[in-house]
């Protein structure tokens, strides 16, 4: 078990490209930390520096308070699951899992090694495959073998480099659950790199969002969702993504492409700081007016619009409303799209409504928008002008408490068993 501390870590490659531009992070003992961001944000480089496969150009990396910048990978006692699993093709599944243990022959005898391999295989349901070669396994099985090799040596921390990206969607869901349970059970500090925001949200105690080598925000998934620091984090977290529309204050109301919105003072005040702002609206802030709960109706505002089409998904329904982008905001939105690895930010609002809604494409409908949750972004800096840091911190603290309870429960189950 170990705490890992990153202090102003910088990585500059031989060709002068700086992939990581001074990242600081405190990863607590037993914590599950996610590094997430679009491709090229430096998350994998950061992970490889932690494990020691990449030299650190500047800054300090500490494991349990000891600076390990110059310690070779084998002496850091970390284990890693690689994106393509890096299984040794000439060894059987059993020998792949045993590999790290065999390297410490002087410390472990064969019986101990066999016991530990069995234990790991049991945990990962690999018992039937121990004598097979990796080439004969399915993707999910290979992934589990890689996990087995990581957990068998009781390393101080697990590092995961996009371990699920080569699996199909269904398997990815299963493995996600398995990894989460395993980590809770073992209580080992884990750092997990992904570009998939769903994995980030579901697995992490805290999630560090990176963009172009810079740390944007590190917080619990809920804080990221409800209190993002800037437009990038807001746009990256959540699926479907947040809608961004231009807005300006006029007559104490917000003028937007979907009409005039009456908003709380807090939002209005934030929007007044600039001539024009970007309004951030998550799809689930909306509802078909007919299905709004009377208790919350007063917290929102109603508007009419004609969706171009709707998608019915069973549990919910998406309505799409097109509008005109304000040309002044185009450069900002184009840059945001680029940062998010997208072609463009479409001039389309996505509204999530109750699946029973009868709103249909081409017909005017009445929609309700929950104005309490609105985000207002500064178009020049991208900063979130409505962010409440205290509320955000509270969310992350709550998450930490919940997490502690979960670990205690896992421990008590272990002792009982």
């Amino acid at each position, binding site marked *: 078990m170990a705490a890992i501390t990153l202090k102003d870590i910088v990585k500059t490659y031989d060709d002068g490209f700086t992939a990581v531009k001074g990242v600081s992070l405190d990863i607590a003992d037993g914590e599950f930390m996610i590094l997430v961001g679009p491709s090229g944000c430096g998350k994998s480089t950061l992970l490889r520096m932690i494990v*020691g496969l990449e030299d650190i150009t500047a800054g300090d990396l500490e494991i349990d308070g000891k600076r390990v910048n110059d310690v070779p990978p084998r002496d850091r006692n970390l284990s*890693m699951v690689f994106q393509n699993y890096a299984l040794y093709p000439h060894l059987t599944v059993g020998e792949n899992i045993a590999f790290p243990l065999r390297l410490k022959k002087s410390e472990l005898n064969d019986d101990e090694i066999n016991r530990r391999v069995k234990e790991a295989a049991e945990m990962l349901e690999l018992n039937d495959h121990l004598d097979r070669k990796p080439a004969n396994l399915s993707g999910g099985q290979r992934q589990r073998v890689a996990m087995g090799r990581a957990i068998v*040596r009781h390393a101080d921390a697990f590092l995961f480099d996009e371990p699920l990206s080569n699996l199909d969607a269904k398997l990815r869901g299963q493995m996600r659950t398995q990894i989460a349970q395993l980590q809770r059970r073992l209580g080992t500090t884990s750092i997990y790199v992904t570009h998939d925001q769903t994995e980030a949200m579901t697995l992490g105690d805290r999630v560090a969002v990176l963009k172009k080598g810079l740390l944007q925000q590190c917080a619990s998934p809920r804080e990221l969702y409800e209190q993002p620091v800037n437009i990038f984090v807001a746009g990256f977290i959540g699926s479907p993504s947040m809608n961004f529309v231009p807005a300006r204050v006029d007559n104490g109301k917000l003028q937007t492409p979907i009409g005039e919105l009456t908003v709380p003072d807090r939002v209005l005040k934030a929007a007044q700081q600039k001539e024009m702002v970007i309004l951030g609206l998550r799809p689930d802030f909306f509802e078909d007016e007919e299905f709004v709960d009377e208790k919350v109706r007063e917290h929102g505002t109603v508007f009419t619009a004609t969706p171009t089409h709707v998608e019915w998904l069973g549990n919910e329904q998406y309505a799409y409303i097109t509008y005109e982008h304000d040309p002044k905001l185009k450069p900002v939105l184009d840059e945001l799209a680029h940062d998010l690895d997208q072609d463009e930010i479409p001039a389309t609002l996505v509204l999530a409504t109750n699946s029973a809604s009868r709103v249909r494409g081409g017909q005017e409908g009445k929609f309700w928008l929950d104005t309490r949750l609105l985000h207002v972004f500064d178009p020049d800096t991208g900063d979130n002008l409505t962010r409440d840091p205290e509320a955000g911190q509270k969310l992350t603290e709550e998450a930490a408490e919940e997490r502690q309870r979960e670990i205690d429960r896992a421990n008590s189950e272990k002792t009982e068993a």
Partner: protein
Amino acid sequence: MKTLSTKQKIAWGLIAVLVLLYTLWPLFSILMTSFKAPGDLFSGKLLPTQFSTENYQTIFAGSAGELFLPALRNSIGISLISTLIAVILATFCAYAIARLDFPGKRLILNTALGVSMFPVISIVTPLFNLWRQIGLYDTWPGLIIPYLSLTLPISIYTLAAYFQQIPWELEQAAQVDGATNWQAFRKVIVPLAAPGVFTTAIIAFFIAWNDFVYGISLTSTEAARPVPAALAFFTGASQFEDPTGAISAAAIVVTIPIIIIVVLFQRQIVSGLTQGAVKG
């Protein structure tokens, strides 16, 4: 897998027979000749009237043995040594090309390619002259050195192509798993690279074993003359006797190891040949 109709089965059987006939016919023909007794040689028939091992006795124990046995020893020794040297040097070279970043990689590969297209006969004349002057003419080193011009380029090419396909990140995985550099090399890289090195050795050996131009130009006695060159100098049991039978028997003897190697390692040889030549 599709199940084949009887018609398809017969067609495939026919094709297989045709291919086998094509590839084996000349060898079968010379094998039959090797079993013909001297009086039987001019029968004008494929099969010997009576199977005789006389020719084999001639080349192993008889008069032709003086010519054949030293040549066999020379061929084996010289081919093995030049293969060994080529493969060792090519392994280092290909490792550097596949793994290290240094200027001139392309130059080395292009040179290997250029050398493999080189007309051997063009360098025989100067070597012939030089070897006579410095005393390498008609010696083992006098053949081993020029053989490297045959075996090195293809070894470098084949191994570079093979090494480029090895998942080298496994070395890093091993280091994370707690291996030292040496352990990572020995327990992960060597087992992965060994098949490629072995295949390359087979191909290089074939090429050295096949040489005729150097063998006939740079030797004059049984001190260094390899089998292909010696075959051209074969005479019969006496000077007036026809050497056909003895040559056939010797030809079969030097073909047997090739067939054994091919049967055992056909898969590796095919992948090695196509990798080295096409992928480059």
